[in-house]
């Protein structure tokens, strides 16, 4: 004796669920590392110093152990790039051919027109399971100025993401101890900086 309706309907229900699970397990291969693994990796020092870039830049190209990647569009790359850098435009970062280029045992260093584009590429590459990827801080202009044209040891550990001012002084918030205190009127000029070419 069977209860045909119950059997059929439960079979249908569970088959749909199981099929969906199997389908999901086979189609979710877009990433090579979980989001959590990526954030954990981002906590490590993912930026190289200008000093090591300078060492790389002044060394003989045959002795180099690093792959430097220029993420800017091909036009900008053609106008000027670090000698020895490979061009992989950010938009095509995950193309199959570029993937093969990136699959090396040597460290991969990224730079772009903006530091945050390099960071975006880094995050995405870590997500693909690449491990040995780092970012050259600053944009191409800054790299060119401080490494290629004249190496400035005071900028050896340059970071674009460093605070340029003591923000607290300009924007007094409710948390200051003396809320009535007027902020210092003298506004220091910002540290000399290469102009950021346009917003994105």
């Amino acid at each position, binding site marked *: 004796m069977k*209860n045909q*309706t*119950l059997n059929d*309907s*439960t079979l249908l*229900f569970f088959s749909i669920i199981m099929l969906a699970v199997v389908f999901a397990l086979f189609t979710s291969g877009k990433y090579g590392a979980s989001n959590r693994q990526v954030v954990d990796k981002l906590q490590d020092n993912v930026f190289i110093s200008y000093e090591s870039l300078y060492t790389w830049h002044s060394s003989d190209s045959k002795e180099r152990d690093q792959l430097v990647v220029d993420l800017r569009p091909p036009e900008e790359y053609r106008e000027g790039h670090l000698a020895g850098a490979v061009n992989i435009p950010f938009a095509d970062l995950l193309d199959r051919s570029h993937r093969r280029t990136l699959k090396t045992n040597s460290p991969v260093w990224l730079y772009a027109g903006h530091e945050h584009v390099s960071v975006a590429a880094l995050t995405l590459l870590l997500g693909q399971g690449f491990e040995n990827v780092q970012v050259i801080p600053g944009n191409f202009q800054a790299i060119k100025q401080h490494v290629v044209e004249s190496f400035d040891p005071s900028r050896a550990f340059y970071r674009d993401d460093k605070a340029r001012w003591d923000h607290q002084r300009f924007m007094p918030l409710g948390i200051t101890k003396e809320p009535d205190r007027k902020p210092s009127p003298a506004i220091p000029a910002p540290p000399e900086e290469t102009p950021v070419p346009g917003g994105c």
Partner: protein
Amino acid sequence: MRHIRTNYMNPYLAGFLLGLVLLASFVVSGRGLGASGAAKSVVISAVASSAPDYAEQSAFYADYFQGSNPMGSWLVFLAVGMIMGAFLSGAIANRLGFKTEHGPRISVRTRLLFALGGGLLFGLGAQFGRGCTSGSALSGMAVLSSGGLLTMMAIFGTGYLIAYFFRKLWT
């Protein structure tokens, strides 16, 4: 011996279908089923509209005065749907008709009296439990909420503990 009608749906099939209805409720509206909520809306809107002075003094009616119309709520529409669905099912199975079911040892009058008392207790309890057997216990079980399962165990635990003393009502 009691005669139990057998033209009801297989209980497991009915349960499975009810589970699918509950699942649909979660998928569409992100919430479970509930029946006592509609009754609460009825009470709130009836009291608050007929005796606003009285209702204003109690925080229980606060929502009503904050501009939300309790009769337009999700649970009220659910209850309206339940009425339609039950009528449909009763009509198809030919189970419609006025009558009072009572145990063999009590009169209709006693049965109605106890039904009133039971309803009163259930109405009160459903407020504390934040939902009745369907709103708190069944929906709570589906999402594995601690409160829902606790309420469910309290309902059935109490039921079994006291059933013996009220056996005259039913057997």
